[in-house]
């Protein structure tokens, strides 16, 4: 119990003094996760809209697979990305292992199924509302997808935030592909794992509280910037 208190005090002092190392790893956490989120959203949103609008043979199968992959174990993703990016692996020449780029790749793989599944769920409902209208207006597939994505943007935001939550707190994959190198690939979660390993629970908890506070802050900022709950349904 005392550990939690000293963790809170540590977190407070780290934040109050703007500890240089803390600022560095926090910004790196944000950079990696937001980059991964941007790439993942670019893949997942159109994919979700496409499987809402189009009817193809393996559609149900694709949806089931996407749903199942929401539970993709990060440590396995990390291991596979590691083997692929290793100097003796197929993409070794790129020299990407143990760089932030490798961490971004792993996180993209982890969050795409999650974002696509959640986005698909709400776009499908929206599509059943819009179906007759859009068909009678003789729209192209492309226009239908664009309409769904634009009118469903609040739901897509929720999907993206879920992806952010999964990526920012993830440690298994980025520990393996990033290597937790000080000043290069250390982020908040891997730093927490490191301090726990040293038995410094207070500092580990302090970093943990900073992580939670940052996740809260990012969510609040996004809601504030996009005026949710203050105008219109979408």
């Amino acid at each position, binding site marked *: 119990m005392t550990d939690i208190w000293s963790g809170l005090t540590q977190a407070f002092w780290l934040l109050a003094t703007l500890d240089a190392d803390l600022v560095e790893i926090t910004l790196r956490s944000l950079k990696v996760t937001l980059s991964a989120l941007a790439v993942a959203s670019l893949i997942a949103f159109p994919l979700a809209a496409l499987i809402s609008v189009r009817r193809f043979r393996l559609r149900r199968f694709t949806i089931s697979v996407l749903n199942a992959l929401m539970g993709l174990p990060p440590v396995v993703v990390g291991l596979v990305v590691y083997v692929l990016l290793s100097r*003796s692996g197929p993409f070794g020449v790129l020299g990407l292992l143990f760089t932030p780029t490798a961490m971004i790749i792993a996180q993209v793989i982890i969050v795409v199924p999650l974002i696509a599944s959640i986005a698909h769920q709400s776009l499908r409902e929206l599509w059943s509302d819009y179906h007759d209208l859009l068909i009678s207006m003789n729209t192209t597939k492309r226009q239908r997808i664009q309409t769904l994505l634009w009118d469903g943007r609040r739901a897509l935001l929720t999907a993206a935030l879920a992806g952010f939550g999964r990526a920012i707190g993830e440690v298994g994959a980025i520990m393996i592909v990033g290597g*937790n*190198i000080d*000043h290069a690939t250390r982020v908040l979660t891997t730093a927490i794992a490191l301090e726990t*390993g040293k*038995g410094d629970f207070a500092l580990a908890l302090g970093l943990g509280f900073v992580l939670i506070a940052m996740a809260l802050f990012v969510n609040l900022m996004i809601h504030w910037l996009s005026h949710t709950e203050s105008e219109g349904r979408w």
Partner: protein
Amino acid sequence: MKNYFMGLAVSALMVGAAAAEEMKLAVTTSFHNSGLSEILLPAIKEDLGLEVQLLVVGTGQALRLGAAGDVDAILVHSRKAEEAFLADGNGTHRREIMYNDFVFIGPVADTAGIKDAQTAAEALSQIAATEAIFVSRGDDSGTHKKELSLWSAAGQTVDDFGDWYRAVGAGMGAALNTAAGMDAYIIADRASWLNFHNKGGLSLLFSGDPVLFNQYAYIPVSPEKHTHVNKDAAQKLEDWLVSGRAKQLIDAYEINGEALFVFNAKE
């Protein structure tokens, strides 16, 4: 969005371009947990202008990283595994740098009574005889390999042990946390123990037997097998590690007034 991707591509290129002054070194958890790296790395940067990026892993994984060419050099402590690594042509040569020692940690009450043991083998035999809970690293690290060789030197077979022998498959710090939680016996390197904050009901019970000395060696990854390795930086770092400056820093490093490492590199 296009700009964003351009940015990503440019930053990826910059990482590649900056590689001239950087090198990757795989080191063991016990070396890193000792805190010595925080003394040596800034000095290396100051003297050589070389940014050494540490990958902190177990010896087993460090050797794998070296064999795959994912790092430029390794600093580990498991002689047999190092020699096998060299025999497979993965490294150029092995250079001994320094040593520290392993210690036996256990509950303050010392239920197995190893405090008065004369040798490490005797201490282990007593733990096995009383079946006191013992935490093993179980992760194929240098410390784990050392522990296994100590058991066999004591005439014990690990495979025959009952459930008092608990292989946790974790790093030194995590294993110490587990031992603290179960009031168990464990073998740790002195540095990790002294730097460990969550000591709980544990204390240092036995040390000093010469078989417990733990030699660290530096091995550059073979540039013939992996043409991309930064062999100049690896050579510069080796020259620095065996220099008088390194000797002075390593020998002077203390925690709570106790020296941890003994420099023994030969010029």
